[in-house]
């Protein structure tokens, strides 16, 4: 499960632009992964310029809520 660390996020939208599933939702200073759409492909993690996304093998709840 992919997790966004909201306190570190700059809300730049890089991950939204590369997400093939339209599974990331970005407002002004609010970002969420739409779990039903996410396939854990990890491309968002690779593209994040500031290491805000990480893969959590234990399936931790999306902490941005």
């Amino acid at each position, binding site marked *: 499960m992919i997790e966004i660390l909201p306190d570190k996020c700059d809300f*730049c*939208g890089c991950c939204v*632009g590369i*997400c093939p599933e339209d599974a990331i939702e970005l407002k*002004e200073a609010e970002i969420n992964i739409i779990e039903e759409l996410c396939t854990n492909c990890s491309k968002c993690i690779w593209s994040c*310029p500031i290491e805000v996304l990480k893969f959590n093998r234990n399936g931790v709840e999306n902490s941005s809520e």
Partner: protein
Amino acid sequence: MKNHYDVIVVGAGPAGSMAARFAAEKGVSVLMLEKDRDVGYPVRCGEAVSKAGIEEFIPSDSKFIASVIDKFSMNAPDGTEVVLPLEEKGYILERRIFDYELAKSASAAGAEILTRAYVNGLLIEDDIVCGVKFEYRGEQHEIKSKVVIAADGVESRVGRWAGIKTYIDFRDMECCAQYTVSNIKIDPNSLYFYFGEEYAPEGYFWVFPKGDNSANIGLGVSGMTGRKRSAISFLNHFMEKNHPDASILTQIAGGVPCSPTLEKIAAQGIILVGDAARQVNPLSGGGIASGMIGGSIGGRIAGESVKMKKPDHLLSYQKAWNDRLGKRHIVFDKIKNGIYNFSDKKFNSIAHSFSKVPMEKRTLGNLFKTALINNPSLIIDVAKVFVVK
């Protein structure tokens, strides 16, 4: 706010504001929606642009120009510096002021603007886009329109909701991090570029002067590189090594889609402009001027299509864009693919060769010609898009 507009523009960056302005100038009603509280802020940009690129749309004005640029400094991995005088001047902008001025020009042409208006869906009837759903001041709204113009940036989702494939391959995304710093000493009229493994593999590192003793310092690396090491870690390494005493005023992240334009940027009731359409110059990563051009063409055609009551006219935007810049961007993309994974050794040897070129013969075209000397087909491409002396 009315309950129907001829044209709704989503996003108030340079592309959105030009789309709104050029549509409004055709005499149709226009509403531009911006998700952030302020137009022009936060800035996610190195802020470099050519003088000609902005003067097509707005006269140069010192209030949004931080620095005037007359040369490039290209730096190879072994430290060899090649200076390239520019025939045409460039600027480092103050985007937060520049974007404001562009939005004001859209408003002066008759467009209405709402900020903090977050578009979260499209109205679609019989497969034709006919308006947007958005959140504004805590309430959900729906407004109908004849045309929706998606100018919602690299993070664009509006096009996807209309069934257009807009996501970008992570290899083509330049993942960027940038600090705006003060207390550094550099030539205030030069853009500095650094290439190679240490600072920015599969991309480049930049130092752009911003007024006195200040600069935008950042880099972009491909998602392929980002998979192994993030942009911010390259940035911190550069700062520790070269500018340990600089004060950081701002830090930002961002993505620059460096690919040819999307195959489809127009459909019934909707067009895409700017970063949302992937109209960035894929070689330089510059998207301000090309976004304004895309926005202006899109806005004009949207306005005409409403005025003439010919919805199909909207689809002519695709060809109009390709003729103006789209085809050029395909060539830029080929050149980019020819050079972006050069080895350090190769960058060094290019710099050594180019150092021998006399100053008056140093042009960007000649630099790329030197870089691609062993690749004749790409040299022809260079000649197509650059003036080669």
